[in-house]
């Protein structure tokens, strides 16, 4: 998932708020990063910059320096210190009023103020990075969640979240010099062009304005340059999150509030007043802890981890991982910290116990139950055929299955024929990788075409999967295993490849016959359908000179293509 950039000194000061600086070694850091499923991808010793990849897509709280530091700090200190701004009956003078109509556009908003933290350069970089990563990945490119940060002292409360006609509101957006209407922003501003599709089809657009009707921003597109540009040295901030999913919106705000609080800010909640009741009420004070405690049997944890654990051990493991825990008889009641929302199942708690204890503290044990190993029938048939081909003096090759219609169909003279049907890709990135092979010959000709300098004769084969379109099949195609072989040299001849096919099928134990076929890839009169028990299982022949020309192959090529899946089914 995201790779973020943090500074080692910033991390160290967040880990150790008392400023009794202890430098942390890179080795120690790598060990600590296991706690957050983080991997150190790069370290610049000159600037102190660290590049960390965070794996867990359900833990957006960890996609920032503050979050990583917090998880490590709790482990070191033994417990999460509760955030005072989450106290149940927080009274706040700050109001945000939601006007009717937004439920069909972008219904939810959460906000808070942060005072007393003077923004540093590193802090600002983190604030911007967190905003980007959360909106982009957690918020699905701003569709579900987007975030705005402002200079608090320029805002008069109450703030209003409402809808306006695209030309009825105007402000100077970040990154621009002039005043623009919302419709101009959508048409001209880079962010409008990038994210405007989220609001496609809306004839009225969301806007946040303060008590003096000053625009704060046009969510989820862009902030006002007047109010919505935070600079190093600012010490009063206003943070808002808008989106389509209430719990994700609140969670995102909780993460920002916790991050700013960890940097020393005092968080002032905001009361959001909705026109109608939401899932958590009509008046919603944010940040708000939406987590609910969950009771989990110790036995569930023990069985999953394969180890006996006391209630006390489990409690300690979870507390040092940030949970709020109380112990019952044979159970624990666990609640996630307010910046997390990823507890779907008891097993999620089990993993946190294991991580908190450290994976190294569990001794591996071999699964003891006896099972019999085996290969599938088709793999056995394919392996046997491959052995025979090697014995016949053929070199095995492997090819991409994904290729181009030019290779698989057009160069084979199969356009508009029954043999030319293929599974094609809808969202093509490159024509070279836009369809699945329906037979093996083109894969072999690909090697032949590139190998005119390799000494002759060339005897090549490949056994592998192909996709054969089949309207009668649930998936619209069948995946089957095919064996293809070619012989190429100045005097390559039908009987030469015929002999090889003959030996192969004899040893596979299949009686076969050849029947003439008009196949466009082969010379007429020198191509046959391979019949086993009356069923066509492949083709053999001298490759048509026009095909060779298309592939720029300068020697005669003879080939066969046998469907091993069909052959194996006939017994």
């Amino acid at each position: 998932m995201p790779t973020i950039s943090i500074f080692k000194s910033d991390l160290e000061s967040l880990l150790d708020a008392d400023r009794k600086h202890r430098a942390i070694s890179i080795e120690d850091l790598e060990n600590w990063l296991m706690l957050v499923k983080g991997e150190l991808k790069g370290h610049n010793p000159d600037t102190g910059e660290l590049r960390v990849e965070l794996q867990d897509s359900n833990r957006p709280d960890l996609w920032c320096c503050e979050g990583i530091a917090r998880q490590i700090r709790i482990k070191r200190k033994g417990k999460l210190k509760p955030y005072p701004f989450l106290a149940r009956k927080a009274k706040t003078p700050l109001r945000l009023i939601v006007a009717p109509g937004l439920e069909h556009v972008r219904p939810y908003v959460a906000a808070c103020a942060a005072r007393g933290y003077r923004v540093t350069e590193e802090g600002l970089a983190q604030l911007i990075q967190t905003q980007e990563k959360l909106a982009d990945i957690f918020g699905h490119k701003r569709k579900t969640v987007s975030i705005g940060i402002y200079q608090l002292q320029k805002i008069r409360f109450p703030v209003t979240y409402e809808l306006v006609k695209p030309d009825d509101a105007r402000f100077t957006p970040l990154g621009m010099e002039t005043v623009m209407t919302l419709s101009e922003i959508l048409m001209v501003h880079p962010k409008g062009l990038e994210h405007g599709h989220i609001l496609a089809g809306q004839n009225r657009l969301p806007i946040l304005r303060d008590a003096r009707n000053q625009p704060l921003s046009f969510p989820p597109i862009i902030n006002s340059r007047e109010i919505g540009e935070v600079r190093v040295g600012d010490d009063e901030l206003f943070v808002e999150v808008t989106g389509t999913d209430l719990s994700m919106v609140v969670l995102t705000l909780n993460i920002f509030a916790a991050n700013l609080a960890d940097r020393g800010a005092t968080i002032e909640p905001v009361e959001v007043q909705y026109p109608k009741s939401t899932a958590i009420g009509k008046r919603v004070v944010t940040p708000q802890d939406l987590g609910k405690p969950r009771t989990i049997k110790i036995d569930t944890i023990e069985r999953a981890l394969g180890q006996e654990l006391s209630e006390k051990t489990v409690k300690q493991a979870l507390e040092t991982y940030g949970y709020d825990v109380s112990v019952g008889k044979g159970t624990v009641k666990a609640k996630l910290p307010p910046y997390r929302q990823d507890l779907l199942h008891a097993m999620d708690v089990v993993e946190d116990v294991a991580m908190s204890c450290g994976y190294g503290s569990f001794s591996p044990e071999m699964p003891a139950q006896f099972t019999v190993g085996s290969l599938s029938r088709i793999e056995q048939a394919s392996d046997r055929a491959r052995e025979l081909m090697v014995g016949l003096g053929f070199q095995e090759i492997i090819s991409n299955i994904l290729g181009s219609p030019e290779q698989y169909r057009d160069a084979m003279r199969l356009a508009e024929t029954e043999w030319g049907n293929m599974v094609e890709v809808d969202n093509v990135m490159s024509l070279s990788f836009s369809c699945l092979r329906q037979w093996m010959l083109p894969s072999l000709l690909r090697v032949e075409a590139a190998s005119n300098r390799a000494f002759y004769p060339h005897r090549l084969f490949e056994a592998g999967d192909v996709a054969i379109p089949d309207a009668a099949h649930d998936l619209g195609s069948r995946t089957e295993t095919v064996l293809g072989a070619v012989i190429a040299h100045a005097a390559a001849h039908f009987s030469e490849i015929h002999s090889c096919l003959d030996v192969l099928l004899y040893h596979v134990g299949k009686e076969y016959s050849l029947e003439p076929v008009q196949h466009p890839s082969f010379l007429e009169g020198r191509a046959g359908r391979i019949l086993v028990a009356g069923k066509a299982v492949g083709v053999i022949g001298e490759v048509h000179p026009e095909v060779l020309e298309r592939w720029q192959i300068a020697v005669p090529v003879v080939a066969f293509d046998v469907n091993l899946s069909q052959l194996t089914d006939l017994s």
Partner: protein
Amino acid sequence: MDRSALIDGLHPLEIKTLTAFGPGGGVLPTEQLAAATGLEPSQLSMAVEWLLAKQLLLVASETVTPLVSLTPLGETYFEGYAPVEYILSAARDASSTGKRLTIPDLHAKEGLDPSDVSKAVGRLKKEGALLIVQGGCLESTGRPSPSAEAMRALLRELHEGPREVGGFPEASRQLIQEHAVRRGSTKEPFRVEDRVARSYRLSPDGVAVAGQLAAQPTLEEVSQLSPELLKDGSWRTKRFRKYTISLRAPRIGTGKKHPYREFLDAVKAKLVSMGFQEMRGSLVETEFWNMDALFMPQFHPARDIHDVYFVKQPTHAARVAEPFLSRVTAAHENGGTTGSTGWGYTFNRERAKRLVLRSQGTAVSSRTLAANPSVPGKYFSIARCFRYDQVDATHATDFFQVEGIVLGEDINFRTLLGLLNLFAREVAQAKEVKFVPAYFPFTEPSVELHVRHPRLGWMELGGAGLFRSEVTLPLGVTAPVIAWGLGLDRMAMVALGIHDIRELFTDNLELIRTTRGLF
């Protein structure tokens, strides 16, 4: 060189030639040598060249004699007539019939070469056999032409065989020189070539070798053992010439497996030996089995249009089997009966039917889970998967994934680690391992296996975890299940000595033929 080694290495032709000189040595001209050895001229000349190179034979004398012979054109002159003869007889015919004969007439008739015509006319005129009268007409004087006669005499004589040029009178020698093939004039009746007549004698070494050969029992030397020699037992009276076996072997084409397939075959055999059963799957899958059944929410970033290849036609599967569709829907929406809260969104059943190119091998495992697998059971697949990636040295759009599942009542986090230990030891020959917390959408807990490979050092070998209940229960499996995957391409690339992942599927036959797999 050691003389006996030299003798052992002699070809039968060389031995014949050396011994032809007899005990006294002496000087033998080529013809006598040929008679004495009974060899064909080409064989003799080979033997002589070899012996000269070995300095066993010396050239005693050399004489060069020019020989003249007829070219194929000369033979046709002999059968018919030479230009000079033709012109003379045409002029005589014209004179006797009163017709006019001009030089252009000669050109048109018989297609004679203009330069041949003018040369011949000039000579005939000089000899007084021909006159050129008014209007450029040729007239015969009736007098004979010595050059035409000399030409006929030469043609007749040379038709019998080559002759020494020196044996002819001066006039004929001049005619030969004029009409001999030379650079810039290839259409001529005569060819003059130097005949080199050599005589040879043995060098002192040659005398010694010949003496030694004469002293040896005279076993006939043969180069090749043959069925005949075996059949009549006559190999016992033969000597087999020794070969220079230090020479490089000639290259031959071989039949062999592809080195990368050989690597995968070894992995396959290893897994079977550990009790794993192979699973097969479809290259085209529904989003349902590829992702939904694995509890990846439909809004998951890795399900984006930029991550997975979608199928153009048909776009959707005919159906997704029940009860799996309904149970998975419930697991996503509210957890259903899995003990989960679910993802809390409205599951799109139509989207579940969308056809994609299999993007992960785990799709094969999800199908197996739904097909009443054995408990205990171990399964694996080596599945071709497709990712919507820009192709470069480290990213392929089309690649193999080695993955599988282990089901059993004794499966838990510790047995998961035990299994990974086994993989580390058996697949990577690694003794040291590290277990690192990891994230996969379908497992909890999840772990990454890092091993210290004997040659590569620390590397990530694979990922694994316990399947979430949201995955197993809707598919009808109540036992705990390990899901595992191994990332083997890096190991394969090192074993094959390649640095670019695209070379695993290279089209370069020379490279495939010469790549050795050191596993």
